[in-house]
């Protein structure tokens, strides 16, 4: 189902947040390097997983990608449009094609709006419906697509459970017939029995509308299930990216290996025999990243060169990209 032309092209994307001091004479004293130069492409119809621990910049990457934050440097092209240079009608058209599903099903829906207004908003913004009647009809159709009853259009978000709210968020993202959706931890706030429902729904919708997903998550088991390719992020940089089974069965970067070995497996017999690579210490402060490879202070295999020079982003064969000196 993938055709060869990529729908999303990210080149050297950088997003720094300034750290300021002073009230009257405000001045910049440093920067949080949330995203520090990442490059990748996503082919039409595929699901790219972006994984990493909290604070590694994966959410910022997703938001900068869609132009929700201005980029500090680098370019993003979605369906041929340069996101950070587009204006006016071109920007609006890009936004119609690229949507987002948010992590928090409680915070991402306006509590004072009815479901009809929430799901119908993209239709209004992009002038996709001529009459009010047509809009309500389309909202009902969208609710049906995500498995909610059309009778619920006049309810408010607080009347729904977490899983149902996430479905409403998905319906809103689908309203403008997008081609590309950034799913920012869409299931991490949900219970296990509801997670599987939402993941299956996302897969069904992808098959039906040939959607392309960037699936941001920290649950590596679910990422292996849903994604076709996976990129691992650490402290604002990509450390490894490969086809999913290649990445999980043959991880090359020491951080990927540690991350995978830390994920618990629901099988006591496997758990008893597993050799864990337990990382020492915490993720460094992204305002003052270490010199050389960002992972070197926690890496058991670090050599002298790792502490001085940043490793290049190289192809280790078959499109398996890794940033490591070893």
């Amino acid at each position, binding site marked *: 189902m993938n055709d060869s032309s990529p729908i999303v092209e990210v080149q050297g994307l950088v997003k720094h947040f300034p750290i300021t001091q002073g009230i009257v004479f405000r001045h910049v004293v440093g920067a949080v390097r949330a995203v520090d130069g990442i490059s990748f492409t996503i082919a039409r119809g595929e699901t790219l997983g972006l994984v990493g*621990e*909290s604070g590694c910049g994966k959410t910022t990457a997703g938001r900068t990608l869609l132009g929700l934050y201005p980029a500090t440097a680098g370019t993003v092209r979605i369906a041929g449009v340069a996101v950070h240079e587009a204006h006016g009608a071109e920007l609006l058209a890009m936004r119609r094609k690229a949507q987002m599903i948010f992590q928090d099903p409680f915070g991402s829906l306006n509590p004072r709006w009815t479901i009809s207004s929430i799901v119908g908003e993209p239709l209004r913004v992009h002038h996709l419906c001529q009459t009010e009647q047509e809009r309500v009809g389309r909202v009902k159709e969208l609710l049906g697509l995500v498995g909610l009853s059309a009778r619920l259009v006049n309810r408010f978000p607080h009347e729904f*459970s977490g*899983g*149902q709210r996430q479905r409403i968020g998905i319906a809103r993202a689908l309203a403008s017939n997008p081609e590309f959706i950034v799913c920012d931890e869409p299931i991490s706030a949900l*219970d*296990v*029995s*509801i*997670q*599987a*429902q939402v*993941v*299956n729904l996302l*897969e069904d919708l992808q098959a039906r509308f040939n959607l392309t997903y960037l699936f941001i998550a*920290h649950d*590596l*088991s*679910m990422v*292996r*299930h849903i994604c076709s390719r996976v990129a691992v992020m650490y402290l604002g940089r990509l450390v490894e990216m490969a086809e999913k*089974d290649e990445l*999980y*069965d043959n991880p090359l970067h020491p951080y990927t290996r*540690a*991350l*995978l*070995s*830390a*994920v*618990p*497996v*629901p*099988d*006591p*017999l*496997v*758990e*008893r025999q*597993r050799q*864990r690579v*337990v*990382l020492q210490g*915490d993720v460094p402060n992204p305002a003052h990243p270490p010199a050389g490879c960002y992972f070197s202070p926690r890496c058991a295999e670090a050599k002298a060169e790792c502490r001085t020079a940043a490793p290049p982003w190289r192809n280790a064969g078959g499109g398996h990209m890794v940033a490591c000196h070893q």
Partner: protein
Amino acid sequence: MPLLRVQDLRTRFHIPEGTVHAVNGISFDLQECETLALVGESGCGKSVSMLSILQLIPQPPGDIYGGTATYAGLELLGLPESDLEQIRGAEISMIFQEPMTALNPVLTVGRQITESLLTHTAMSRREARDRAAALLEGVGIPDAVRRLRCYPHEFSGGQRQRVMIAMALACDPKVLIADEPTTALDVTIQAQIIELMAALRERTGMAIIWITHDLGVVAGLAQRVIVMYAGFIVEEAPVEDLYADPRHPYTRALLAALPRVDRTRRERLKSIPGAPPNLLVEPQGCPFARRCELVVERCWAENPVLTAVGPNHRAACWIDVITGVPR
């Protein structure tokens, strides 16, 4: 005799919208030195049942309206507050989910760790401080003597959880209740904390009740598992049996809904239709009936009791899930 025996514990909450039936008669034993996992989704009553045992439920709106909880021969429910204070923190202590909110932000970590030592033991301030430093060292925080003077915001999330563990262990409790201690943490930090807890259990021989929703975490650390659903225990088994041979449709469905990091994808996830029941409605029949594949007439009218399905293995279901025929 078990270290802790809970029988027919019932807790409800009276709120303006009605009565929340949070815990509906649960019974279990905890043996010495055992790690017991309490598994279930949010709202299934796993935390409330533990808080009820320690009488940490505000009454009202809470109402512990039935059951007993016997710790080493002593009945905890209905014990006066002054006696409970001798138990809490000294004999049974608890670690909470959110290390950010469970610590007091305006007191130093040293003050918070020494508090229980000064309350429960005859230690002087100096002795308590030395013991606190040793505890902090013991949970893997370097430079402990200096760190005692730091405030919680100066620690990372994983370190705060270590501080919580040090506080809980201060008086060498016999039972440690860990309420989702790693849920707010990243997987690599979670692995550190699990490793630490296993080492501490080895060293101190305390019994641990680990509350979690993560069946992966349970597999690696528990000896026995209790699965809860809508305020009822639906299955209880040794950890190997629960994963190899789950006997309740809910447990089976949960395990089937989990993708695995060590296996390539075979098929779509098997999702459980619907959502957990509304706890405002008085439970009738089996709480899982509405979402169950194997439901029969009887499930709607009568709630199945926990019955033995194997050695140390109990499940509450009218159907034998292996053969598909009613018991």
